[in-house]
């Protein structure tokens, strides 16, 4: 499955990651995935599958989150970074665009774009091209129009753009995006996905895109993983996922049977354990 991608060294790699909440609830187990440079890798799954936990494990937990990484490791650019605090990981280049609480509401747009500490120096690192404010406003013209507005008054789509913009200003090597499409109109989702694809193409950014909206994600992704109940159950290049029967039925809503069936009748549920 991953044959074509083995030769490319992954920028970010998760090996058998296991996260437990409150010391009793295992959220994810045995999660392994790889994000090569200049690629969009998508992580699909329904609510509660463990996608956000995976992203948080990569980008760092705070003590107050009551979460522990009890197994596996996170390898970034060859170095093990499991369990480091969030601000350190952000400065190294693992930048997260969170699912909620993604902007500082009592700060203006302009101040939001300044409320960050970018990793590395502008000139020092050739693999991390500096992203300037002008570039950001070029990608997100609507933000330029609303610079002096309090971020709390922005619409959902504008907030998402602001969050992406601030993440870019942190000079990420790998961008982790959690539920880009959540709560947004389809047109907006499409434009944001196109934008992410542009960032990959123009800036060479590697992206780990966690999404419930499989259709939108697979439209721009190179590779995909499917997560259920805290485990990865399937992975493959985006075209293969788009063609897979179960993915089509459960995540794309394209059923191949016209009639409704009972939960227990569905063959796929019964062979759920055999995803390979």
């Amino acid at each position, binding site marked *: 499955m991953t044959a074509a991608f083995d030769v490319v060294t992954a920028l970010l790699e998760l090996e058998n990651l*296991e996260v437990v909440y409150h010391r009793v609830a295992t959220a994810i187990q045995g999660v392994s995935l790889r994000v090569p440079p200049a690629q969009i890798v998508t992580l699909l799954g329904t609510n509660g599958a463990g996608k956000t936990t995976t992203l948080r494990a990569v980008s760092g937990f705070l003590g107050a989150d009551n979460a522990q*990484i*009890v197994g596996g*490791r996170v390898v970034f650019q060859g170095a093990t970074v*499991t*369990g480091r605090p969030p601000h350190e990981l952000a400065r190294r280049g693992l930048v997260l665009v969170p699912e909620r609480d993604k902007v500082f509401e009592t700060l203006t747009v302009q101040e939001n774009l300044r409320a960050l500490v970018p990793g590395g120096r502008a000139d020092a690192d050739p693999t991390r091209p500096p992203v300037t404010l002008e570039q950001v406003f070029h990608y997100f013209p609507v933000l330029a129009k609303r610079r002096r507005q309090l971020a709390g008054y922005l619409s959902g789509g504008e907030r998402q753009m602001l969050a992406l913009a601030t993440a870019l200003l942190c000079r990420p090597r790998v961008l982790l995006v959690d539920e880009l499409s959540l709560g947004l109109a389809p047109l907006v989702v499409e434009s944001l996905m196109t934008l992410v694809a542009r960032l990959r193409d123009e800036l060479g950014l590697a992206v780990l895109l966690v999404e419930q909206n499989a259709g939108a994600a697979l439209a721009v992704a190179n590779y995909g993983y499917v997560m259920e109940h805290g485990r990865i159950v399937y992975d493959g290049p985006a075209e293969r996922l788009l063609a897979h029967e179960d993915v089509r039925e459960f995540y794309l809503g394209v059923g191949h049977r016209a009639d409704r069936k009972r939960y227990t009748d569905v063959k796929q549920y019964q062979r759920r354990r055999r995803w390979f």
Partner: protein
Amino acid sequence: MPLGGGYFKTTYAGDLALVDTRLRRTALAAALVALLLLPRVASPFVLDLITQTALAAVGALALNLLTGLAGQVSLGHAGFIAAGAFTTGVLVEHRMPSPLLALPAAALVGAVLGVVVGIPALRLKGLYLALGTLALHHVVLYACGEFQNHWGANTGVSIPPPRFGGFVLKGTIAWYYALTAVAGLVLVLSVNLQRSRTGRAWMAIRDREIAAESVGIDVARYKVLAFVWSSALTSLAGALFAYQRAFVSVEAFGFFLAIEYIAMVIIGGLGSALGAVLGAAFVTLLPYGIDTAVAALRVPGGAEYYLFPLKFGAFGLLMAAFLVFEPQGLVGVWRRVRNWVFLWPLRYRPLRPAS
């Protein structure tokens, strides 16, 4: 015939009973007997300690109604005690020392004060409410100070022992019975309030006010009701305090008393009647504990001098320790012990983090 050792109820009466299982009934009976017979075996000092604890428990239970059940944080509790005590003082100054008048009057003053505080409190939440009540505490103390100066009793008002008709309440044993009985009544009242519709409304407001409002609970009314109940009971405790100490002076109600009540609630554990009682016991007995410890250590002369800051400091330290390590207070500790006993020999073992 009770099924399942008493845990399965077959009648409404059984369901509503406060003390439902046989174990609990036996325990309660034993406790009552012990309390009744205690004066025969215990020294007056111990009885006095229990009396003080009982009085503190009344205040703590009242505070628990407001802060633990209804979620309305109040740091100004000591002000209500002062209000009740001073009502008694004022009546005594006007030559009306009868408790049959003073006690209801104190409760009434408390209730009115509760309305006065409760209505503006509707606008405030959480921290701001706490600060508002703290400020109010100072204002109430100021008013009491003015009373004290006005009546010319610069050091305080002396209160004669209460007469109920022909019966005069004085002496350690009599006060012991009286106050433990009152504490018991307030405890039952507290527990019943918790189970009642009012109590459920309060808990709903505490947990999610917006949701409570959306299911039709009149939030404003219940919040004010919580203040009224709490301050009426506390003022009552204040009046009893005045009678028991036989003296009322504004100095007794200052900063330290306010901290004591906060400590009772924190150390005991918020939200349960048991917590309030445990906290009251702990806070009342702690100074004596320190006294004993210091005496036992036989610290050389001049030690009495250090006693006050030592007690003060120990208070602070314990409060901080509970806040950081056991936010649920003594009730949390009790629950953990109880769960450990119930689960034994099974034990949930927490996972250890990697690296």
